[in-house]
């Protein structure tokens, strides 16, 4: 491969995805919910971006928009400098060779009536057209070996395998066409911790070996910290904080990120005895209605008048660390 080491693979600008809500009144405009609201992000070759947030924050919708599985209402997505158009079948096909996805449910993402070998071979042929049978088998087997599966798995069916083995097979299927970016949507969330650790290590190895970039969507902050160089925190469809993994985990600037981190239970009883229970105001169902000002303001312990009036912009709070918070701009970083 001859391209520059850190080419920008994916550039997303002002991406907005809205969904219609059920009508609450007979007349008047239909209510819409902004699942993804004016999101900007980019991923370079070999980079790992973690996307974190609570359920319903728009993580998966953002991923689906990037994969061209939902049509955004506004904004642009560029893949290696080329704008992505949903009506451009040829362009999408080219992009899909380089952009692959692994979902949460490993068993559900494999065809139960195809052997693992057939599943992986099918992906290869879908991306690269009909292949020579012997060459296909060799590539499938080397891919299975690369994700740590025994060649005997080739002839076995998803129901015969464990969840971890199925997830490895799903990864093999996604990687067999040598993509440049792998989107992992909660790809380790359904797995037991011992298996989760194996898959996280596998992703880290694949990245090191092939310069594979990852968009790693997870609600598990500790896993994101282990795997990702950069982190974007999503709240109500907006990126509220973004920065290097080191900066965000060491010194989160947005109160939402701090609350998320504080809520992660440490596997250490002594730490629990020391730490007070975070006083996080839960998002009530009633809050689903539009909030004036910062979307986090009803739950935020720091909210003041300004927060209730103006939506904060995502701004640099030092060293390229971005936060969308009026208070983060005013207050210095916590030591």
């Amino acid at each position, binding site marked *: 491969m001859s391209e520059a080491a850190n080419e920008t693979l994916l550039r997303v600008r002002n991406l907005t995805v809205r969904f219609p809500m059920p009508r609450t009144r007979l007349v008047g405009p239909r209510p819409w919910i902004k699942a993804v609201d004016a999101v900007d992000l980019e991923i370079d070759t070999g980079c790992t971006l973690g996307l974190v947030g609570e359920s319903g924050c728009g993580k998966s919708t953002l991923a689906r928009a990037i994969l061209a599985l939902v049509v955004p209402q506004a904004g642009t997505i560029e893949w290696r400098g080329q704008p992505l158009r949903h009506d451009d079948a040829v362009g999408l096909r080219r992009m899909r060779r380089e952009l692959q996805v692994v979902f949460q449910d490993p068993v559900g993402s494999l065809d139960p009536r195809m052997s693992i070998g057939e599943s992986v071979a099918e992906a290869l042929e879908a991306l690269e057209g009909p292949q020579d049978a012997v060459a296909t088998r060799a590539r499938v087997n080397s891919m299975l070996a690369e994700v740590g599966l025994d060649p005997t798995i080739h002839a076995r069916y998803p129901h015969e395998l464990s969840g971890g083995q199925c997830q490895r097979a799903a990864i093999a299927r996604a990687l067999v066409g040598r993509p440049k970016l792998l989107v992992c949507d909660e790809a380790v969330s359904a797995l037991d911790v*011992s298996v989760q*650790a194996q898959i996280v290590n596998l992703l880290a190895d694949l990245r090191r070996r092939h310069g594979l970039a990852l968009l790693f969507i997870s609600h598990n902050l500790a896993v994101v910290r282990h795997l990702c160089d950069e982190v974007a925190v999503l709240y109500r469809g907006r990126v509220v904080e973004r920065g290097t993994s080191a900066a965000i985990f060491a010194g989160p600037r947005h109160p939402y990120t701090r609350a998320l981190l504080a809520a992660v239970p440490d596997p250490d009883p002594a730490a629990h005895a020391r730490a007070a229970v975070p006083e996080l105001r839960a998002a009530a*169902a009633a809050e689903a209605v539009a909030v004036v000002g910062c979307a986090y303001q009803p739950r935020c312990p720091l909210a003041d008048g300004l927060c209730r009036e103006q939506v904060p912009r995502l701004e640099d709070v030092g060293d390229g660390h971005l936060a969308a918070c009026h208070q983060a701009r005013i207050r210095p970083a916590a030591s």
Partner: protein
Amino acid sequence: MAPDALFEVRDLGVRFTTPRGRVSAVREVTLEVRRGECLAVVGESGSGKSQLFLGCLGLLAAGGVVEGSARFDGQELLGPDDGPRRAALGTRLAMVFQDPMNALTPHLTIGRQLAEVVLERGLLDAAAARARSLEVLQSVGMPESEERLRQYPHELSGGQRQRAAIAMALMTRPDLLVADEPTTALDVTVQAQVIDVLRKARDRGLAVVLITHDMGVVAGIADRVAVMYAGRIVETAPAGELFAAPAHPYTAALLASVPRLDTPLAGRLVGIEGQPPAPGAEPDGCAFAPRCPSVLEPCHRSRPPLESHGSRSVACHALRRPAGAGP
């Protein structure tokens, strides 16, 4: 047995008859829950941690058979007379499950469902039941409790539903609450609140059995921990001791594979190589031996019994060797 044991399980086994033959989910489990303590039962999926308690409470799926003994406050629940089990279940012994939506009836208000628990059993009259509902809902930290009583389950968020389900379980002032993965479906922020609710209930004297795979949750609330692997208990210990120095190699490996926020990044995560035995497989030796980093020669031949080592019990050959008898 400790004198203050509230719930005692002895030699409990759970078997299922499946088209592929009989499968043992739980084997020879003995444990106790003391009054006012939180016992966490941890293990990976398929380890039998849920089936153990479903078996004790007579709630197994079709084809499930339980054997052994489960005594609640001295009364045998699994005897030929079903009376004690029926009397205790849902009254002095309550359960909360992972999905709160399944515990709540969609077309009844929260207030009606809470009151029903005590009205159906004839424990309180309507006015007292209403007062108890409000009191219990407040005790689980439900915001705007009074208004919630008039709402339906779909109007509540996931965390609020789980709190309503816990409130329902607490209506009869039970002595023991068995909570099976109560926070698994919840966001971390909401999980922290639900754990806090359980911790406060425990502090008021309720004994809690927390079935979970999340070691972080365990550390936040458990007094004692029982670790299960392939249907058996491999280690029980006070929570502090278990986290400080896990004795069984499986416990150690399980703790090491949890990615953490509070430790320096060490590069790779430590997984456990290999896989647990297939359901129904009954190896001659220790079930963990094929994956164990400190496996010894006898591990493949004979199964180590659960033996007491001071305040903890461990089933491991490596710990049975007398001191000074080799590395």
